[in-house]
């Protein structure tokens, strides 16, 4: 009886499942370790820079108050102190500026919505009694360079936000009737200008009742 020659099995040079899993696990562990070290080393600087930027922005839109405090939205009420054990990052916040005698001079509010290209984030300060604006700064925007980005750079446009009254109405440049609620929009940046006005009106509508309740409730 003849036997068919048995096929020679090629030597298996592939790695075992264990070595594959071990390689990926060790690589993952080392990568994680390195990232933790770098995170710990860089995070204080990153947070300090963000805080500095925020302080500068609040100072600008509240016309350089003597001091300012952060108010957190906790269960529909603005509070200057967080409940024990709560993390400040989990709460929305507004800022209240004080003069040298510790009297509130105005509130600064942040809000964002879609502009022409991407989200536009704005901070502005106002007097809750009159609705009078104190200043506005665009915190984040990717509007078209040379056109939409004028909302950050156009001095004429920006200067209006320290005199106008909330809520705002956008008008074509030169078509206004002298109403204090009117803002002249920028030619060539109409969508971006309108976005800024909408952001501020939305923020005013949302935050003003809360700020009024805080301002008159004596919770500070």
């Amino acid at each position, binding site marked *: 009886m003849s036997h068919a020659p048995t096929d020679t099995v090629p030597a298996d040079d592939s790695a075992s499942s264990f070595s594959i899993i071990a390689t990926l696990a060790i690589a993952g562990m080392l*990568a994680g370790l390195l990232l933790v070290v*770098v995170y710990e080393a860089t995070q204080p600087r990153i947070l300090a*820079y963000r805080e500095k930027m925020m302080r500068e922005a609040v100072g600008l839109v509240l016309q350089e108050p003597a001091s300012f405090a952060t108010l957190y939205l906790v269960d529909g009420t603005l509070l200057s102190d967080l409940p024990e054990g709560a993390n400040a990052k989990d709460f929305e916040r507004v800022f209240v500026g004080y003069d040298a005698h510790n009297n509130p001079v105005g509130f600064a509010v942040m809000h964002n919505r879609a502009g022409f290209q991407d989200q536009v984030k704005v901070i502005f300060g106002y007097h809750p009694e009159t609705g009078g604006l104190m200043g506005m700064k665009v915190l984040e925007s990717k509007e078209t360079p040379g056109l939409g980005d004028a909302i950050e750079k156009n001095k004429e446009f920006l200067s209006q936000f320290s005199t106008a009254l909330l809520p705002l109405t956008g008008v074509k440049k030169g078509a206004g009737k002298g109403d204090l609620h009117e803002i002249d929009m920028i030619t060539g940046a109409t969508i971006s200008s309108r976005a800024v006005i909408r952001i501020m009106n939305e923020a005013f509508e949302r935050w003003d009742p809360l700020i009024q309740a805080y301002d008159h409730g004596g919770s500070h």
Partner: protein
Amino acid sequence: MRETTAKQDLFRGIWKENPVLIQMLGLCPALAVTNSVENALAMGVATFFVLCGSSLFVSLLKRFIPGEVRISTYIMIIATFVTVADMGLEASVPVVHKKLGAFIALIVVNCMILGRQEAFASKRPVGRALLDAVGSGAGFMIALLMMGGVREILGMGSFLNIPLFGDNYEPWVVMILPPGGFLTLGFWLLGMNWWTERKKHKQKELAAEESGERRAA
């Protein structure tokens, strides 16, 4: 694999096999973040760091990485260096980091980096892998600066934020917008191809002259 000298490994990526201008790799950041020299430089430095770090580790660990999971392991190494670069840039130059946005994180998928690991670092000793990474990283940075330089000069009338032409200059805004990226890349590629063809043509002419002289002799 073709044997090369250390000098060839270092200089190949800078010009002759430039990742952007010759190999057409990493075109996404080359088009997206080169609207100013500052952004181009930051992206170039970050990519250089990631490429050198990844090549060093891939070459060091090549014996321990099973073939079946080599690409996953390379990606893990690259992603680690990208995250380190991302945090480093945010801590040191936060303004530039904000402008570059998601493109720093997207260095992970820059095919030039993975390409150098698979084609070179995983097959060569550490020293050679590093030389290749330095050359390719420098070549990428040079290409980005060539793009960023032209776009900032024409699009903003400045170089590294220093005004060049005075107040009367009307900036070509299109150059800092996405179409300006494609236009600039197109003109640089045109220039590179013209230069390469001219060089080849001259070499041919020279060779023909030499053979003519030999025949005459």
